[in-house]
C-alpha cells in the first residue's frame, strides 16, 4: 500500500491527562537494580567463603565493628533527604547545608574505612592476596567504598553548584535522582555490615 503522506491518527477524546513517570528516576531505579545484582554476587561469594580460608588472619581476630563510619553513613541519608526536601520548598540555603552535611559524613565514612584498611594491612599483614578472607573482604568492602567515592564526588559537584548559586528549585528532581543513588549506597552498607561484621565474625 503506497502512500505519499504519512497519516497519524489523533483521537479527539483523549483519556485523562497523559502523565508518565520521570525518566531520571526510572533510569536510576534500573541502574540500582543492575547494581544490586552485582553486589548480590559479591555478597554470595563472601558468605560462601566464610570459614574457608586455609590460613590466617581470620575475621574474628582482626575485624572491629565500624561503629563511627556506620553511624555517619546512615545519618547521611537523612541529610541528603533534607537537602532534597529543602530544595523542593525553594530553600536554597537549607539545600546547601544538607549537601555539605552529606559530603562531610560521607568523607568521614571513607576515612574510617581508610583507617581500618591501614590497620589491617600494616598491623595484621592482611592483603587481598593473603587468603580467601582478604580477597573477599577487600573486594566487597572496596566495591562499596568505590560507590561511596562516586557518590561523594557527585554530591561535592552538587554542593559546588549550590554554593555558586546555580541550583534552583527546578533542579529538585535531579537532586532526587542523586539522592536515590545515595540511599542505595547506604542500604548496601547495611547488608555489607551485617554480612561482613556480624555474620562473618
Amino acid at each position, binding site marked *: 500500500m*503506497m*502512500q*505519499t503522506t504519512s497519516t*497519524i491518527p489523533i483521537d*479527539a477524546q483523549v483519556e485523562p491527562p497523559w502523565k508518565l513517570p*520521570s525518566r531520571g528516576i526510572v533510569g536510576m531505579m*534500573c541502574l540500582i537494580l*543492575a547494581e544490586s545484582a552485582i553486589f548480590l554476587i559479591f555478597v554470595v561469594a563472601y558468605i560462601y567463603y566464610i570459614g574457608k580460608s586455609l590460613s590466617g588472619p581470620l575475621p574474628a581476630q582482626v575485624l572491629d565493628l565500624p561503629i563511627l563510619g556506620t553511624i555517619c553513613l546512615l545519618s547521611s541519608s537523612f541529610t541528603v533527604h533534607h537537602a532534597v526536601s529543602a530544595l523542593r520548598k525553594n530553600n536554597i540555603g537549607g539545600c546547601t547545608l544538607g549537601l555539605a552535611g552529606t559530603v562531610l559524613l560521607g568523607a568521614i565514612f571513607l576515612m574510617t574505612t581508610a583507617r581500618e584498611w591501614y590497620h589491617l594491612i600494616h598491623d595484621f599483614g592482611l592483603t587481598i592476596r593473603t587468603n580467601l578472607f582478604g*580477597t573477599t573482604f577487600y573486594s566487597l568492602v572496596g*566495591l562499596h567504598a568505590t560507590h561511596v567515592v562516586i557518590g561523594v564526588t557527585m554530591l561535592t559537584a552538587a554542593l559546588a553548584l549550590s554554593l555558586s548559586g546555580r541550583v534552583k528549585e527546578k533542579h529538585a528532581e535531579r537532586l532526587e535522582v542523586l539522592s536515590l543513588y545515595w540511599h542505595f549506597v547506604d542500604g548496601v552498607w547495611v547488608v555489607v555490615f551485617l554480612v561482613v561484621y556480624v555474620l562473618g565474625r
Partner: protein
Amino acid sequence: MANGTVLEAVDQTLEVKRRPPLDVVYEWVSTVDHKKIGLMYIVYALIFLVIGGLEAVVMRIQLAVPNNHFVSPQVFNRLFTMHGTTMVFFVGMPILFGFGNYLVPLMIGARDMAFPRLNAFSFWISAFGGFLLYFSYLGGDGLYGMGSAPDVGWFAYAPLTAKVFSPGHSTDYWTLAILLSGIGSTGTALNIVTTTICMRCKGMKLSRMPLFVWLMVVASGIVFVAVSPLTAAQIMLTIDRYLGGHFFDTQAGGSAVLWMHFFWIFGHPEVYILVLPAFGFVNEIIPVFSRKAVFGYPAMVAASVGIGFISLSVWAHHMFTVGMGPAGNTFFVFATMVISVPTGIKIFNWLATLWGGKIIFKVPMMFCIAFLFQFLVAGLTGIMLSAAPFNWQLSASYFVVAHFHYVLVGAIVTALFGAFYYWYPKVTGRMMSESLGKWHFWLFIIGFHLTFDFMHVPGLLGMPRRIYTYEAGRGWEWWNLIVGIGALFQVAGILCFVYNLVRSYFRGEIAGHDPWDAWTLEWATPSPPPAYNFAVEPTVSSRRPLWDLKHPEDQDFNYE
C-alpha cells in the same frame, strides 16, 4: 472515533547532497539519534557475524574428515572460544539491541530514546569491547609470548583461567571485552526500559504496546539481573589474575564450581535475552502476513514476563554433571521443564494467529514459519536435556552443541533474517529482492538442517564437543562430513543475503511508507524516517493504530 481527526504529516523528501566523507564519518561517530545508533549496532554485529561464521567454517573443515590437521590444536581452541564469545556478545546482543534501538521509539511514538547520549556511550563501549577481543591476536602475547587470542572456551571455566594455566594476556582480553560489552548492554537495557516507561505517546498504554516492545522490555529486565552477575564475576577474575586474589584459586580454597554458578546465572538467562527479541519479531510479522490481529495478546505478555522470571531459576541445568546432589538436581530439572509451559503458550498463540488467516508467503513470513518448526524442535531437545539422567549421558557432547545451535541459529538467526526482510524497507526506503530472498531462504534452511539435524547423531554416538580431531572407525565420519557440507550451504545462503542487502540499497523497488499494509506506528512515518520520527506526536487508541486509520468503519478499540 466520532470527532476524531487525521493529521497529515508533511512528507519529507530528503535532499541528498554529496558531502565530504569526513563530514559523514563525523556525523555517524557523533550521532545520538536512536536510528543511526541502531543501524551502527546492526552493521557492527553483521561484520562480527561474518567473522564468527568464518571461524565456524574453519572448524567444520577441520572436523570434516578424521585425523585432519587443517589447523593446529592451539588454533582450534582459539577458534571455538572466539566463535562462541563473538556470536553471543558481539553478534547476538548488539544486533538485537540494534533492532530494539531502531524500533522501540518508533513503535511507541517517541522521538528518541530517553537518554540519547547514554545510548551512544553504550554502543561505543560495546563496539570497543569487540575490537578489544580481536586485538588479542596482536596484543595477547604478554611478556613471554605465551598468549594469543583467548582459548579458554566461551564459558572459561576455572581454574583454566588462572594465571598459571593461562599465561600471557589472552584471558585478560577476553575478560575486558566481556566487561565492556556488559556495561554497554546494561546501559542500553536501562535506556530501553526507561524509554518504554516514560516516552510513550498519548494513549499508548502498556496494554496497547506492540508485543515487540514488550519483549524488548522483558529482555532488558533480564539484562539487569543476569548480565550484572557476569560483570561481577569478571571483576573477581580480574582481581584473581592481577591482584593475586583467590576467588577461583582452588589451591587456596577457592571454588571452581562457584565460577560455574556465576557464569551460568548469566549464561542461561542470556539465551532468553537473545530469544525474546526474536519472539518479538515473530509477534510482529506473523499477524501482518496472516492478516489477523495476534491471538491472545494478554497471554503473550503474561508468558513473556513469566519466561523472564523463570529464566532466572534454571541456570544449574548446565551443571548436572558437577554433582549438586538430588535436591539441587530435582529443583533445576523441575524449573527447566516448567519454562517450557509459557514457551508452549507462545507457540500455540502463533499457530492460532495463523489459523484461518489469509497467509501471505513473502520472505519475512517464510522465515517465521521456519522459525516455528525449528524453535519447536529446539525446545523438544531442550526438554530431553533438562532430564538430569539423560543429561549425564550427553553433557558436553555434540548433542548439546546441536541443541543450542538449533535455538541460536534455527530460532534466533532465522527470526532475525525475517526481521531484516520485514523492516529493511522502513530503514532504507527500498524493498529487498524477493527472488534473492527465496534463494537465501532455501539455501540457508537446507544448510541449517544438514548441519544441525545431523549434528545430533555424533553426539548420541559419544562425540565430545571441542575435540580437535578424531580417529576413523568410530562411526562419526559421515555425520561430520554432512555437517560440514551443510555449513557450506549456509555460507551460500548468507552470501545471497549480503548481496541482497547491498544490491537492494541501490536498486531495490521504492517501498513507500507502508509496503506490508501493517498496523504499528513505525509504518506511519516516511521510509526512512526523518530524524525527529514523527512530525506530529501520534495519539493511539488501540493496539493497531494504523488499522484504525485505514478502517474508520471498524476500529479495533471497539473490541479491546
